[in-house]
Structure formats: C-alpha cells, structure tokens
C-alpha cells in the first residue's frame, strides 16, 4: 500500500523538492500553497490555501481522508522568514510570521493527528531553524516563531505518543532558496561561520534527516530537534 504524505508549502523551494522526491519513491503526496500547484503527477493532489486558515485546512485534511482513508506522514514545511531589527519590525509582520509558521503548524498537526490517531500510526516533522538555537540578531521574530514550534513539537510528542505518532523537528541551516534571497551576503557568511561545518545546507541534507524521522524503524524517536551543520542550543 502506498504511503500518504502531506507536505505544506509545495509550490517551490524545499517543499516542492521534497514532494517530487517522495513521489519518485512511490508515495501519494498531498500538497498545498497559497497559489496554484506546479507539480503534475497522478499521485499528487494540490490544495490552494493559506495554512493559517482553519476552515480550509480542515477541509483539505478531510478531503484527503475521504480519498485515501489515511495520512501516514505530515511535513509542516510551509514557512515565511523576515530579517529585521525588532525595533523596526511591524505588528503586521509579526502576525503574518506567527500565523504561517506557528498557527499553520498547529492547525495541520491537530487535524492530521486526528486521522493518525484512528490508524494508530503517524509521523509528524516540524520545521525550526538554526536561527532559533543561535538567538540570531536580526531574526528575532522569525526565530521566536520557530522557538514556539520547538516547544510545541516536544509537548505534543507526549500527548500523541499513546497513538504511536511521533513528532520531531528539523532545524536547517541556510539553503539557497527564495527564503534567504533578500538576506545580505555578509550576514549569510557570518551565519555559516557559526556552524561547525561551514557551508550551505542542501536538499539532500534535509531529506536525510526527514527520511530518518519518518522511517518505520524510528518509532522510538520523538520530541527531538535536529539542527544541521553542527549547531546546538
């Protein structure tokens, strides 16, 4: 039986790469983004929505449950970043970042966990960032939204453990995607310098950790946060 994986933010970047990767492995992939999908595959379904819109997320998860009867894996990949001094960060920016990053992760985790509970199996992978562990200047709000996700990940991992659902988080280093295209080069260089291994992260690095978290054999791995590149709290 094909595994069903739901990935948020699949229009571009890491999300799209992951969707195509899991399709190539024979998974059924359910994706979403605020604009139309860019993946064409008979095993792919795309939903156009804002991840912080509760009603739309509920509908997406129920539609998926109706068609495939299960959801094995959830990757809360959708996220937005903002680099700014906190004194010049607007209230609206904070709301947008927390809505997409934290609220999106919360709503998807809650709704998909309901499906996973019934099947007594599930793997949830959330996304944090090395900026959270590093308390990186200029990333206060983005890192705070990810810090919330880290704590949430560890707490809900206990709440859903009785249902054989694991919840973990990956903290990537900068990867050359749209998310960091506006960040000055010297800032990125300074960040890479804080890593034990001083290079950009790659899709392969991220896939490797996600593959580990979602492996059937990882049933005893939960509430863990893995940062790439040798960063730690």
């Amino acid at each position, binding site marked *: 039986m094909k595994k069903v994986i739901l990935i948020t933010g699949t229009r571009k970047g890491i999300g799209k790469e992951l969707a195509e990767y899991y399709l190539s492995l024979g998974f059924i992939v359910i994706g979403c983004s605020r604009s139309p999908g860019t993946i064409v595959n008979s095993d792919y379904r795309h939903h156009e929505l804002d991840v912080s819109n*509760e*009603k739309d997320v*509920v*509908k997406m998860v*129920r539609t998926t*449950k109706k068609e495939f009867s299960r959801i094995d894996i959830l990757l809360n990949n959708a996220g937005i970043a903002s680099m700014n001094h906190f004194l010049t960060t607007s209230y609206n920016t904070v709301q947008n970042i927390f809505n997409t990053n934290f609220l999106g992760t919360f709503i998807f985790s*809650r709704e998909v966990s*309901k499906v996973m*509970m*019934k099947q007594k199996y599930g793997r949830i992978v959330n996304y944090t960032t090395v900026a959270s562990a590093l308390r990186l200047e200029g990333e206060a709000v983005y890192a705070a939204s990810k810090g919330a996700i880290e704590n949430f990940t560890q707490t809900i991992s206990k709440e859903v453990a*009785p249902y054989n659902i694991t919840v973990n988080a990956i903290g990537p280093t900068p990867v050359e995607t749209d998310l960091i295209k506006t960040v000055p080069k010297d800032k990125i260089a300074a960040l890479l310098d804080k890593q034990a291994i001083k290079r950009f992260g790659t899709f392969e690095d991220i896939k490797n950790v996600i593959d580990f978290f979602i492996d059937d054999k990882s049933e005893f791995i939960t509430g863990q946060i893995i940062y790439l590149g040798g960063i730690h709290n």
Partner: protein
Amino acid sequence: MSEEIEKIIVDLLIELNEELEGNLLENPTKKTKLYGGGGALDSLALVSVITDLEERISDEFDEDIVLADEKAMSQKTSPFRNVKSLTIYIQKLLKVQN
C-alpha cells in the same frame, strides 16, 4: 436537527462501549455523563470521541466543524460534560457555519 445530532452521539457511544468492552456507557441517553465529574470518558477517550464526531457530523450535514473549545477540559462548563450539552454545542457550531 437536535434529535439527529443526539442520535449520532448516542450511536457513537454505543460503538465505543462495544470497543472498550465495558458497561460505563451502556444505554446512553441525553443525560449520560461524558467527561469530568463522574463522566465515563478519560481525556484520551474524549479525544477519540471528538475525532469520530467531527467526521460523522461532516458526513451527515456536509459541514466541517471543529470541536475545540477553551472550556473543553473544564469540569463544570465543558460542552463535553454530557450528551445534552454536547448536542447543544454541536447545534450551535452548525448554526454559526450557516
């Protein structure tokens, strides 16, 4: 609508009772206590009931509701405290949607 919702809840409780092989929820009625203060469900069983109910309400009324409430875990005012309060709560949510 109230009777339909109540029937969905009662049917679900009968099935749950069979699953649990217990008699705590035998012959459930409007007054059957569910959660808190002598209720038959612990928090894990409550979460399971909520999940099933959302699905059945969606199938029956073609409306996606979320049974989440800030008072969910309250002993006195939880909408999940008995079959009647849960019926009223679901009815209210369905009305808001329309």
